[in-house]
């Protein structure tokens, strides 16, 4: 095993992307993800890659569109307001069935908002953000080490399903340093990108990258074909981490940085004798509905803890299908919930169960 190094979450995304064969990065600086752009600016020229700071987020995402169309492993990154600007391009990329990886290190919103960590862009990440019937696969790591493996997986899943994949972090995850090694980075899969626009060599018909279909029937056909792929993704790609759910009265759920706050809180209340389990979604889309449905057979209540006013909680409710009450606790605007207030919330719910 190689020696562990200390890296910021943002830098670890960059290194993992390079190790996964990403040689094209188009970005535009914004706090709190700028270290990722800076890392790529430093590394890409040394390995024959492309780093380009575009004139805007809109330009950057359209550069991604171009590089993805040519079959390159390509990444862009931003934070909340910048992702709003990229939303049009992301929809085009989804509509053109192209693989790419988009990193969103979320900060408080709406508007310019603030620069401290938030999770208030869950809806934007999982329910669209851009227009049309489309989805992104959304990975939500909760440690610097997990960032590494999920970045590699992001490129692989993007290629496998020809969909854009988003890595959804937050300011804390991007800025914090933790020990990390690159021993277990999933290998880059090789897919035959016979659809890429790389020149015909006069040996085949032109490949066309496009998201415009003026005939409704034709457009509907492409959407249904894509939906069939989404259905496979929903069936096969749900990821989560769970513990102590079998005999739990209360199941607490959270993703990303908040899940670590929840772990601290759950440790405290379990020591007090409360039967509390945890489900941590790792994919936010597809949402890990199966485990929630399963857990709802025995759990008496659920609690979704988020750095938002309540977004993921809607997916928890959909998954639980009314089998148990689903509570919510959140702080937002850049405020991170404390383990103490989460523990209080759990105790309150436990009190109501008796």
């Amino acid at each position, binding site marked *: 095993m190689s020696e562990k190094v*200390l890296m910021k979450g943002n830098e670890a995304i960059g290194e993992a992307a390079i190790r996964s064969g990403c040689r094209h990065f188009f970005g535009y600086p914004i706090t709190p993800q700028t270290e990722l752009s800076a890392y790529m600016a430093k590394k890409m020229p040394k390995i024959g890659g492309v780093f380009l700071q575009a004139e805007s987020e809109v330009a950057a995402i359209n550069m991604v569109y171009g590089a993805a169309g040519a079959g390159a492993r390509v990444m862009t990154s931003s934070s909340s307001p910048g992702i709003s600007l990229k939303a049009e391009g992301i929809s085009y990329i989804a509509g053109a069935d192209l693989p790419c990886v988009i990193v969103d290190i979320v900060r408080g919103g709406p508007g310019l908002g603030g620069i401290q960590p938030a999770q208030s862009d869950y809806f934007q990440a999982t329910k669209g953000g851009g227009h049309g019937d489309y989805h992104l696969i959304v990975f939500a790591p909760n440690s610097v080490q997990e960032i590494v493996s999920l970045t590699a997986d992001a490129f692989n899943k993007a290629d496998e399903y020809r969909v854009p994949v988003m890595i959804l972090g937050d300011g804390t995850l991007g800025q*914090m340093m933790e020990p990390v090694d690159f021993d277990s980075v999933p290998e880059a899969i090789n897919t035959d990108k016979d659809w890429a626009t790389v020149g015909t060599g006069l040996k085949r018909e032109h490949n066309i990258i496009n998201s415009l279909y003026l005939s409704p029937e034709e457009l509907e056909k492409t959407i249904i074909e894509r939906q069939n792929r989404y259905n496979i993704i929903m069936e096969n790609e749900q990821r989560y981490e769970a513990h102590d759910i079998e005999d739990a009265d209360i199941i607490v759920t959270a993703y990303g940085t908040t899940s670590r706050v929840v772990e601290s809180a759950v440790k405290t209340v379990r020591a007090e004798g409360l039967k509390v389990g945890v489900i941590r979604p790792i994919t936010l889309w597809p949402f890990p509905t199966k485990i929630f449905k399963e857990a709802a057979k025995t759990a008496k209540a659920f609690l979704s803890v988020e750095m938002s006013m309540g977004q993921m909680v809607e997916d928890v409710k959909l998954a639980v299908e009314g089998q148990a009450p689903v509570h919510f606790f959140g702080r937002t605007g850049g405020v991170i919930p404390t*383990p103490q207030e989460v523990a209080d919330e759990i105790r309150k719910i436990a009190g109501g169960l008796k």
Partner: protein
Amino acid sequence: MTDNIIIAGFGGQGILFAGKILAYTALVKGKQLSWLPSYGPEMRGGTANCHVIISDEPVASPIITEPNILISMNKPSLEKFENTVVSGGTIIYDKSLIDREVERDDVKVAAVEATGIATAEAKANMANMIMLGALIKATNVFTLDEIRAGVEKAVPPTKKDLVDYNMKLIERGYNL
């Protein structure tokens, strides 16, 4: 065993770097750790702090709400964090820059003439190393030998000559 350490002061005092040395020392020692900086419109003269967690177990929340060790290098940070320190914890503060005493009587206190000594014997911005030395003395987080390994990792390879320079001031803080 878990140490929750907050280091706080002005931007430019090397708050984050002092935290990095602790983080690297923990790494070399094979401990679990997290290092979380305050970030934002930070600048020289503004406030800065970092949270370093060193543990035998995986670190859950990287955000410290109840530190057992506070290193305070200016008055606003002492005001802000003094009451968050757990009972029985340790507060180490820079006496040169903070003109009041710690009010708590349930914590261990080390008042260190850090900026004064650093200014006289090196540079004012090396006070962070004096504070680290005082930390080693006041707590058993690390030994001097262990922290040398951390300094060697935290100092960039191009500036290796700074290892001894930093260590000299850490030892100075230790021997106060």
